[in-house]
């Protein structure tokens, strides 16, 4: 994985010094809160309901074991011994003191980490496939491009005060696990007719108040032009994106209002004028970054390991876990392991310092010391030998990290909601916990199969509810928490925005409704191979709606 050199380290250290000075000037009153706010936001510091929250960037969701241990330590020193993994593959601490922030950032810098541009109206952490560099279905490792984008977008002088935040995602696989169609810019690597690999560029997707599926602005972009093209899009957006209304300031609204054709015309004109400039990527510069993502030293293995086959046959729990929580690796004899942070009844995405240290140890022993964070708020060990899977399962289980529910109904995405967030209208975590408990029975959960439930505590949609197979949105009705339910959303290569089933329900009825929806699906599905989403696409909204509101 990518290691800082002197340049990266110097810049991060200088950033800490800069922020320390800014905090001092704020505390002395030299700068106003209004002037300080964007400075702290661009260093990941939010003012929440009860305390400051500090959001740490985990570039494209990749961590070394040393970094994860460092995060655990910082969580103990400055928070209450916890970290919360987010849908942007980042980590948040929820109980931070303003006076201590610079110290926390200095500690982060020691492990080659930072909180730069994790908030504010700038280019945010670029996200990607959590299986990058490991998945069997990958065309090319997207992390190389994420790192190139990370460097280009960090402290970009022209784009530090955009109309609104800006999120980029990259997938190197046709099976999109990075939700690229619901990002401000989505990049999908693919091969053109000539066999060259480049990018499909998708623009103007996004969730929030006005959800949009992104539109293709260019079918094929050669690799060496990536930064010139990104800069062209950002330049058009910076000048012409709306700044009169916070809720209409994302690039999706610009694309929607002027249309994708007009947008393409502007961007292509800008690109034509700049593509042969200083941003054009020389092949040797690409190679230099790519070398840092060289595959680890895999053993040459063949056939199915006896340990694995034996455990699968004799240990029922292991078999359940291996079926649900592992994914096919491109290297024979290896698997990708997803560590569920969704034990039924626990807040989705939370990990204790103890758990983080345990994962770091397991990664060192079994997965080349590397950990990934998924946008679905789980962790990943990308390169585990199949013969080690039983041992990994056992080690994870000792820390409550082996819940066999990846992709199932209890693997819920939820935003922090009204328990922490100043913007929320309703709580997300308690309803996620209640729903997950309904699907604790493994037999039923595995029979239901893949079902993505996503919960947001307000219209800003941090919990991605629009693209949940079942989406849940918290609303406030005269001081009481209500929940709107949508069906049929998807964030993958067939991205879709979910359809609203009807009036919002109170907490108890909403939890019951999820049960009813699932029972309806089980009744309607053609076979156990037909997923909830497939059934919904086949039969439509009506039978689900009837089932939920018939009793009410």
């Amino acid at each position, binding site marked *: 994985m990518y290691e800082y050199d002197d*340049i990266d380290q110097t810049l991060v250290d200088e950033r800490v010094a800069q922020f320390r000075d800014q905090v001092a000037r704020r505390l002395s009153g030299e700068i106003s809160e209004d002037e300080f706010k964007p400075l702290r936001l661009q260093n990941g510091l939010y003012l929440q309901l009860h305390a400051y929250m500090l959001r740490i960037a985990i570039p494209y969701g990749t961590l070394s074991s040393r970094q994860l241990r460092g995060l655990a330590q910082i969580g103990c020193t400055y928070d209450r011994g916890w970290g919360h993994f987010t849908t942007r593959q980042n980590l948040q601490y929820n109980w931070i003191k303003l006076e201590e922030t610079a110290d926390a950032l200095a500690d982060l810098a020691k492990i080659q980490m930072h909180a730069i541009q994790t908030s504010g*109206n700038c280019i945010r952490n670029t996200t990607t496939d959590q299986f990058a560099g490991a998945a069997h279905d990958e065309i090319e490792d997207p992390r190389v491009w994420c790192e190139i984008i990370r*460097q280009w977008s960090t402290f*970009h*002088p*022209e784009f530090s005060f955009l109309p609104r935040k800006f999120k980029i995602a990259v997938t190197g696989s046709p099976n999109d696990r990075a939700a690229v169609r619901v990002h401000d810019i989505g990049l999908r690597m693919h091969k053109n007719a000539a066999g060259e690999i480049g990018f499909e560029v998708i623009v103007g997707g996004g969730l929030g108040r006005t959800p949009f599926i992104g539109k293709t602005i260019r079918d094929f972009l050669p690799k060496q032009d990536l930064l010139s093209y990104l800069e062209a899009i950002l330049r058009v957006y910076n000048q012409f994106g709306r700044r009169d209304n916070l809720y209409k300031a994302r690039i999706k609204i610009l694309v929607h209002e002027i249309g994708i054709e007009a947008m393409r015309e502007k961007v292509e004109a800008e690109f034509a004028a*700049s593509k042969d400039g200083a941003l054009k990527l020389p092949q040797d*510069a690409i190679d230099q970054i790519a070398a840092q993502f060289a595959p680890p030293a895999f053993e040459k293995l063949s056939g199915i390991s006896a340990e694995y086959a034996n455990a699968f046959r004799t240990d029922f729990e292991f078999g359940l876990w291996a079926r649900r929580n592992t994914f096919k690796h491109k290297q024979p004899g290896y698997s990708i392991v997803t560590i569920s942070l969704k034990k039924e009844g626990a807040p989705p995405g939370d990990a204790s310092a103890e758990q983080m240290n345990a994962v770091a140890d397991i990664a060192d022993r079994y997965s080349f010391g590397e950990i990934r964070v998924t946008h679905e708020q789980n962790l990943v060990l990308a390169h585990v030998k199949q013969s080690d899977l039983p041992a990994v399962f056992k080690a994870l289980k000792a820390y409550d990290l082996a819940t066999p529910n990846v992709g199932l109904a209890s693997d819920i995405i939820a935003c922090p909601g009204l328990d922490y967030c100043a913007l929320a209208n309703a709580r997300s975590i308690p309803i996620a916990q209640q729903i997950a408990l309904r699907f604790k029975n493994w037999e039923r959960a595995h029979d239901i199969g893949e079902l993505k439930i996503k919960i947001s505590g307000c219209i800003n949609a941090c919990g991605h509810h629009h693209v949940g197979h079942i989406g849940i949105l918290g609303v406030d009705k005269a001081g009481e928490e209500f929940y709107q339910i949508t069906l049929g959303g998807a964030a993958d290569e067939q991205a879709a925005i979910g359809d609203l089933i009807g009036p919002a329900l109170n907490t108890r009825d909403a939890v019951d409704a999820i049960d009813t929806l699932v029972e309806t699906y089980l009744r309607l599905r053609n076979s156990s191979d037909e997923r909830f989403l497939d059934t919904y696409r086949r039969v439509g909204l009506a039978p689900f709606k009837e089932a939920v509101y018939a009793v009410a």
Partner: protein
Amino acid sequence: MPLLKDGRLVGEDAFQPVADDAALPESGAVLVTYARWQAEKEQLSGRNDPLGIVLPNTLDVLDFGAEAERFDLIVLTFPKFSDGRAYSQARLLRERFGYRGELRATGHVLQDQLWAMQRSGFDAFEIPRDDAAEAFAKAISTFSHVYQPTGDGRVSALKQRLAIQNKDGRRKQEAAE
């Protein structure tokens, strides 16, 4: 308003701002609005003294760029420091249209944005503080490296590393020979 140019405080602005409804002085450097320039191009072009123009940050500079070299001063505006449109205008004027005259930032210009402004091509700043020169010196020395190329000519980290790699490669090759 203290005016900083090339990092130094300028005692008096050489350009006299002229309101749209005021008569132009017979001679001397003047600063006019974009609207006035549009209305009185011929008359203004006839003057022999330096000419400055204030552009609104809503202007598409592609519509103005070809005329940029006609001016000795272009003033770009930051109505609020968080409104970053003028950064793009500045880079386009410098890098696309090759404007070499004074490029001045006005409006809500704060210490913490000076670095980005300078990298985008600004060389003059109206800063409402007495220690503007010190604040500027501090701001622009915040970072020792840059990650991206702009018209300021600084070499990006990506290319710096390539140069180091190539140099190392040559050294190894020479040692081998």
